């Protein structure tokens, strides 16, 4: 009997844990949004987070975006060569980068870089009782810790996505001209061909969703980290894994809604 009940009990525990986790994530979102009217009083904290999350991520994104653009263009050329006009290399690269690769890779890179840092920071604050210190001083941690980070993620992830899109297209153009014998004019007209503003907007809309997702999971895993250095390590691992999974799932969901 125990043999049958044990896995059921384990499964039940996991399901209840997952449901309460989702509930807690929505609570974090609710408490953070509740603090929104006070945002103007903490502009310095918001700017600080925007710099930490946005500006500091540009060098890393510079490298990943340029190479992503290059790979996308080389692959498009490899697949299309001899089948369609060179112009379509620019078309394919542009569509791929704006709709999928730009937002997705930016979000995945940021989940690794700033999502894990957020979880580690909150976990370490909790460990050192800094979160309790806010409460004891009658200061709302959601107003001073969560809200500036939420706003920074919400605004900076789309900005970084747009920058990443531009850099990836730049990488595509460089490799086209230098290695694929495609002229600037052909690549440029290819990019324009079949372009729809929705391609760009879809990517940006996705990036808003990804930004909020990384923030919520980073904050949640930081708050729920177990004690000690191992706890912080596990929290950072959990936020990267869960963010990557959620980003891929939400990418599909948003795309399905936008491109019906």
């Amino acid at each position, binding site marked *: 009997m125990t043999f049958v009940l044990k896995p059921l009990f384990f499964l039940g525990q996991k399901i209840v844990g997952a449901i309460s986790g989702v509930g807690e994530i929505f609570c974090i979102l609710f408490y953070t949004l509740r603090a929104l009217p006070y945002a103007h009083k903490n502009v310095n904290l918001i700017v600080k987070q925007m710099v930490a999350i946005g500006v500091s991520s540009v060098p890393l994104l510079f490298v990943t975006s340029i190479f992503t653009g290059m790979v996308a263009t080389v692959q498009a050329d490899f697949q299309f060569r001899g089948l369609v006009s060179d112009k379509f290399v620019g078309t394919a690269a542009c569509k791929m980068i704006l709709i999928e690769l730009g937002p997705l890779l930016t979000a995945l890179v940021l989940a690794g870089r700033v999502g894990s840092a957020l979880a580690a920071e909150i976990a370490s604050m909790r460990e050192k009782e*800094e979160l309790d210190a806010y409460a004891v*001083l*009658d*200061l709302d941690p959601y107003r001073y810790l969560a809200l500036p980070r939420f706003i920074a993620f919400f605004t900076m992830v789309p900005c970084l996505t747009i920058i990443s899109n531009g850099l990836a297209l730049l990488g595509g153009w460089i490799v086209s001209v230098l290695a694929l014998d495609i002229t600037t004019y052909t690549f440029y007209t290819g990019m324009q061909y079949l372009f729809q503003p929705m391609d760009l907007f879809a990517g940006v809309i996705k990036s808003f969703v990804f930004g909020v997702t990384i923030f919520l999971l980073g904050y949640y895993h930081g708050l729920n980290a177990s004690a000690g250095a191992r706890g912080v390590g596990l929290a950072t691992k959990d936020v990267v894994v869960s963010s990557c999974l959620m980003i891929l799932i939400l990418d599909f969901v948003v795309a399905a809604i936008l491109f019906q």
Partner: protein
Amino acid sequence: MPNVKINPDDVMIKLRGLKKNFGSQSVLSDVNLDIRRGETMVIIGQSGVGKSVILKHMIGLLQPDEGEVTVDGITISTAKYFDTRTIRKKMGMLFQMGALFDSMDTGENIAFALREHHPELSEAEIQQQVTDKLKIINLVPEFRTKMPSELSGGMRKRVALARAIALSPEILLYDEPTTGLDPITSDVINDLILEMQSKLGVTSVVVTHDMVSAFKVADRIAMLYKGRIIEVGSVEEIKKTTNPFVKQFITGQRKIDSEN
């Protein structure tokens, strides 16, 4: 020993039938304790017995599973959000590791709550208050620019104390104030606890297992053992106790007398 007149009938903090479990582990089983206005009550007990848990109940960071916590006439164990905030404004807490905000310098740590709770104060007035608080803890104003990472353990606790008294609380809670400090620095902290009582007239609750500190700062001492307060008395009464568990603890014996 402090020399402040205390009215035994004027109870500031009242704990009645306090019970708290963490999962299947029972930490507090039936805690009853009265803390008088203006006195320094020291709660002693072995590590992990639940002393800090009692402190966190007093300031509303934890809610009891059963029982009642009343602070200055307000029952905070069943308090509404508003009542908890009212009570917290009357209380300050010195955390075991200081819990200073790592991203802010010393001055900002002290000024932060002041600035948020007293928007009517000018920046000059806030800086004056920071200087005053630093003076109370015997630190020169130049310390305001030091980051928490640049401070020694003793300094961190002193700055944390300055932050705790920034809002002029009526009650101060000290969580292991001398743990991890050398005997001389511990004595500096003990003197500060006494000064807080004599200069600011605060009611203090000190949680410690450092008996030198307990005997120096206490008006009364309470011993927590297996989830209950087993003895409360003045320093002299505790020194002369016949309770074998209290005797064992204050003399630092591995076994109780009858077992020796």
